[in-house]
C-alpha cells in the first residue's frame, strides 16, 4: 500500500484525468452510487460542524407556546412536546451521531489493530488467548452487549461510546489477525528481519500497512452500524441521556403516543438516521469495490 502512485493507478484505469477534481469526477462516474453516498456524508458532516450557522434555533431551549407545533412557518419540521424546534434538534443531533460514529469506529479499530496484530504476528499463547476472548465477545449480539455495558456504566455520551466501541473490537481484531497471518509469511517480512529491523518495527512498518485495506472496508461498515446501535440504545432509553438531541432519543420520546397526534416527531428523526446510514453503506460498498476487488459482486 505504502508508496502507491494513485494518479498512475487511476490513469491506468482509464481516468485520463489531471488534477484532484478530474480524478474525483472519474471516481464519481465509475461509482455513481458511491458518489451519492459521499455526497450524503459530506452533507452530514457539514450539518454537524456548522450546526449553529444552519439553524438559528437552540436545540435545548423549551417554549411552551409552540408545544407540538406542526411543521411549517418558522419551525420547518415542527416542534416537540416541550416546544423545541425539531429541525434544530436534528441538525445538532448530527453532531452526536458523528461523534459517536467516529469515536466508536476509531476506538474499535485501534484496539482491534493492536490485538489483531499482536495475535497474528506473535502467535502462540497470545493468539490463543485473544482468540478465545474474541469468541466470548462475539457470542453475544452487539446490541445485547452494548445494552448491558451502557446499563453498567450509566447513561452519558462517553459511556455510550465505550459501550458501543468495545463490542466492535473482536471484529476488527479478527480481520487484522487473519491478514497478518498471511502477510507474516511474505518475503518482504523476511527481508526486513534480515536487515536487522526489530520485531516491533517489522510488525508496525511492514505488516500493518498491508492489512489496512480490509480494515477500511470493515470500518466503513461499522461506521453506519454504530450510528444504528446508538440510535437503538437511545431509543430504549439506555444511551445518550436528555437533553442531548440524539436522533434515537428523539424517537423514544415521540414513539407510540405521537404516531396519532404528531407524526412529524416520528418521521423526521427516522429519516435522518436512515439517510446517514444509507450514505455510509453506499460509500462503504464503493470503497470495498475499490480496495478489495475480490469481494466485488
Amino acid at each position, binding site marked *: 500500500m505504502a508508496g502507491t502512485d494513485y494518479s498512475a493507478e487511476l490513469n491506468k484505469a482509464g481516468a485520463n484525468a489531471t488534477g484532484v477534481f478530474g480524478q474525483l469526477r472519474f471516481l464519481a462516474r465509475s461509482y455513481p452510487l458511491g458518489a451519492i453516498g459521499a455526497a450524503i456524508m459530506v452533507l452530514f458532516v457539514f450539518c454537524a460542524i456548522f450546526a449553529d450557522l444552519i439553524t438559528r434555533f437552540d436545540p435545548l431551549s423549551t417554549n411552551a407556546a409552540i408545544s407540538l407545533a406542526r411543521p411549517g412557518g418558522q419551525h420547518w419540521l415542527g416542534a416537540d412536546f416541550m416546544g423545541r424546534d425539531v429541525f434544530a434538534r436534528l441538525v445538532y443531533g448530527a453532531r452526536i451521531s458523528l461523534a459517536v460514529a467516529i469515536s466508536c469506529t476509531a476506538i474499535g479499530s485501534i484496539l482491534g489493530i493492536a490485538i489483531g496484530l499482536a495475535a497474528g504476528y506473535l502467535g502462540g499463547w497470545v493468539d490463543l488467548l485473544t482468540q478465545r476472548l474474541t469468541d466470548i465477545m462475539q457470542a453475544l449480539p452487539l446490541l*445485547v452487549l452494548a445494552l448491558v455495558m451502557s*446499563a453498567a456504566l450509566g447513561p452519558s455520551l462517553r459511556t455510550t461510546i465505550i459501550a458501543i466501541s468495545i463490542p466492535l473490537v473482536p471484529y476488527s481484531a479478527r480481520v487484522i489477525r487473519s491478514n497478518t497471518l498471511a502477510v507474516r509469511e511474505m518475503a518482504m517480512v523476511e527481508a526486513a528481519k534480515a536487515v536487522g529491523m526489530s520485531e516491533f518495527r517489522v510488525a508496525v512498518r511492514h505488516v500493518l500497512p498491508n492489512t489496512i485495506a480490509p480494515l477500511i472496508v470493515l470500518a466503513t461498515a461499522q461506521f453506519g452500524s454504530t450510528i444504528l446501535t446508538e440510535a437503538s440504545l437511545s431509543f430504549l432509553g439506555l444511551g445518550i441521556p436528555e437533553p442531548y438531541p440524539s436522533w434515537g432519543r428523539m424517537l423514544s420520546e415521540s414513539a407510540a403516543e405521537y404516531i396519532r397526534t404528531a407524526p412529524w416527531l416520528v418521521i423526521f428523526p427516522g429519516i435522518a438516521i436512515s439517510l446517514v446510514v444509507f450514505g455510509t453503506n453506499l460509500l462503504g460498498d464503493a470503497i470495498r469495490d475499490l480496495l478489495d476487488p475480490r469481494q466485488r*459482486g
Partner: protein
Amino acid sequence: MGAYLVRRFGLMLLTLFGISVIIFVLLRLVPGDIVDILFDSAGMVNPAEKLKIQQDLGLDKPIPVQYAAWIGGLMHGDLGYSYVSEKPTLSEILPRLPITAKLAGMALGFAVLIGVPLGVISAVRQNSWVDHVLRVISLAGLSMPSFWLGLLILMGFVAAFGTLPIYTEPPKTMLDGFLLLAVPAAAVGFRSSALVMRLTRSSMLEVLRQDYIRTARAKGASPGAVNFNHALRNAMLPVVTVIGIEAAFLIGGLIVTETVFNIPGVARFLVEAIRWRDYPIVQNLVMFIAVVVVVMNFLVDMLYAVLDPRIKYSD
C-alpha cells in the same frame, strides 16, 4: 470427527463460562443496585431496613461468592428469584419465550422467503435495472433502524384502520394471533432479508462464473435449471452460514421491535430487567441468549459439513 466434536464442545463451554463471568462482573460494576432504586423511588431512608433487604437478596456478599451461588444454582436448575416480581426467574422467562421464538422464526422465514429469490434474480440479471433497484432497496433496508420501520408500520395501521394493533394473549383466533405477530416479524425480517439478499446475490455471482455452469449451459440445460438446480444449490452454502449468524443479528431487532409493538416477549423483558437492575433476570437471560447463539453456530458448522461433502472436520 469425534475428536473435533469433543474439542468443539469444550470450546463452547469455555465461551459460555467466559460470558457468565463478564456479564456477572459488568452488572455489578453499576453504582447502585435494585435496593437503591427501590429506596430512591419510595423515599425510604432507614439504613437498617435497607441493609436487611440487601442481606436478604445476598447483595452484601463479595462478588465471587455471589457468582458461585449463581452458577451453583444454575447447575441444578435454580435460577433464583426476580428482584422486582419476587417470582422464580424461570417462571418469569419461560412463558415469554414462545412469543419471542415465534416472532424470531417468522422473521427468519420472512428473511429467507424474500431474500433468497430476490438475491437470485439480482444475480442472474446482474447490472440490469432490476439488479440496481434491488441493490438500492436492500441497502436502504439495511440502513433503516428496525424500530423506526416498526413505528412507520404502526403509523400505517392508524391511517388505514384508525387503531393500533394490540397484542393480546391468548389471541382470539389462530389467524388473529398469526397476523399480530406477522406484522412485527416483517419489521424485523425486512432488515434481515436485505442481508440475505445481498449475500445470495454475491454468492450466486461467484458460482455462476464457474466452469460447470458454463458446461451446463453448453449442453443445453434451460436457464431455469442452470440457475436453480446447478447454481443456487451451491450458492446457498455461505447463505446458510449467515442465516446462523443472523440469529444473533435478529435478537437486536427483536429487542427494539418488541418494545415498539408492546409484545410481551423475552427480548423486551430483557430491557425492562436491565432498567430495573433485576440481576437474576438479566444475567440468566443474557446467558440464555449466549447459549442460543453458541449452539446455533455449532449447528450451522455441522450443517455446513452435511451440505458440502468437501468439508470434513478433523483435528
